[in-house]
């Protein structure tokens, strides 16, 4: 004897060639069925052609650039003649800028190490899966906490004279404050947007701002002895 069937199997009547969800409803329960009927295109050829087209456009830009701008080549390496300033490639200038303020263990080992670890743990730390606005819950407590962190960071950077890194920090702190006093129903689009940002967004955006500012300063505003120079006055 077969056991009594305690489920129903169903498949959409609008069946097409695309794969779809088969649903088993056990013990006469009735879960919320989410419709799933999303249009898909075939990787071959549609997606591949688009990818190829995108790469082709980029290649044209790179070729034009290579025709009009030459890669730098200076005199042969000379260990006895140190250029001033000796700069790392642009993507490390943020770290070199840090090296100007902090000892090498901090700027060259601790900061990059923490950055890499921080990036790796991002997906494992996002407890807030629905990505709720940071201040939508426990507003008072979270506001106090974020202002303490931002304040401590500001004082720390101020004490070490790291004014370059201070600018993005103060900027983000200001935006945080604005977000705390904005509601998702605000009439202002920007404030509505800020009010809905989760904590991970705030940290990553702070990192992005720092990255841009430090790299730009290292590239354009640093001269002999890592002194402050203005690029338009050289």
């Amino acid at each position, binding site marked *: 004897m077969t056991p009594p069937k305690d489920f129903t199997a169903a498949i959409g009547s609008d069946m097409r060639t695309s794969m779809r969800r088969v649903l088993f409803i056990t013990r006469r329960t009735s879960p919320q069925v989410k419709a799933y009927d999303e*249009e898909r295109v075939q990787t071959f050829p549609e997606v591949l052609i688009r990818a190829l087209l995108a790469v082709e456009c980029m290649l044209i830009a*790179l070729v034009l650039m290579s025709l009009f701008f030459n890669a730098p080549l200076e005199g042969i390496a000379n260990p006895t003649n140190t250029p001033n300033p000796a700069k790392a490639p642009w993507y490390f200038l943020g770290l070199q800028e840090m090296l100007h303020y902090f000892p090498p263990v901090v700027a060259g080992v601790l900061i990059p190490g923490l950055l890499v670890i921080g990036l790796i743990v991002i997906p494992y730390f996002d407890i807030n899966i629905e990505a709720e606005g940071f201040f939508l819950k426990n507003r008072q407590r979270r506001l106090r906490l974020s202002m303490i962190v931002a304040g401590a960071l500001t004082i720390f950077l101020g004490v070490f004279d790291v004014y370059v890194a201070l600018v993005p920090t103060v900027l983000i702190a200001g935006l945080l404050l604005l977000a705390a006093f904005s509601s998702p129903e605000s009439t202002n689009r920007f404030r509505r947007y800020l009010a809905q940002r989760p904590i991970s967004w705030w940290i990553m955006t702070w990192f*992005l701002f720092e990255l841009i500012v430090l790299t730009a300063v290292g590239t354009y505003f640093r001269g002999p002895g890592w002194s402050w120079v203005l690029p338009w006055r050289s």
Partner: protein
Amino acid sequence: MPSTIETYFDKLERTRVWKSIFRSGKGSSTLHNALAIQQNVFLHLFPTKVRKRMLGLGATWYLGTLTLGTFLVLVVTGILLMLYYHPSVPQAYSDVKDLQFIVSSGLFLRNLHRWAAHAMVFLAFAHMFRVFYRGAYRAPREFNWVVGVVLLLVTLLLSYTGYLLPWDQLAYWAITVGTNISSAVPLVGEKIRFLLLGGHLVNANALLRFYVLHTVILPISAVLFLAIHFWRIRKDGGLYVRESEPGAAAAQPTSEEQKPL
């Protein structure tokens, strides 16, 4: 009437040799198009179908694709550059000078390699931030994000090791500044630096080591991790669909749906 080329191509596709190479067979039906992906050792890393919504410029900005594009440009131009370059002192510098002034299109080749390298670093960062702001790192994609971080580091190291190879003042001092930092690592710093440079100073040994890293070890690592990266996109259910996009909440994919045929 089909053009001559089309007829020839048609005939070619019917030959026994062609059929023995391309397992997907001839045709342009949905099945054949799916097989063209699934039966190809390289393309089968990708899903056979992609949500149409994810193909618009707005979703990924094509940044991952473009990063891959720069990588391919770098492989091709890099191999060509290797034909003219000896990783020895002072030959390396004169080889690069020859590329600039003597080798036909050598200047163009070197420029393209250099600008594509800068573009790749920039695009890898941009792609990372784009993925982050789309929220595409969330489960089940956590590990692919980690693979991405590894790819970012490999990209940075590729660019950095390549920086020394012209053996000019710019190269020499950039690497000196950079490798000095590694001696700041507690306890093992000096050892790491020695291992990297093959000596206490940036010299001919360092050039050779950077060359091997730049042309063998790092590119192979990059290809390996790229393969994992793309394969995981398929296994994780295709590109992440953002909640704020229309109909997205209803379309949370499960990995089962993306199982290959």
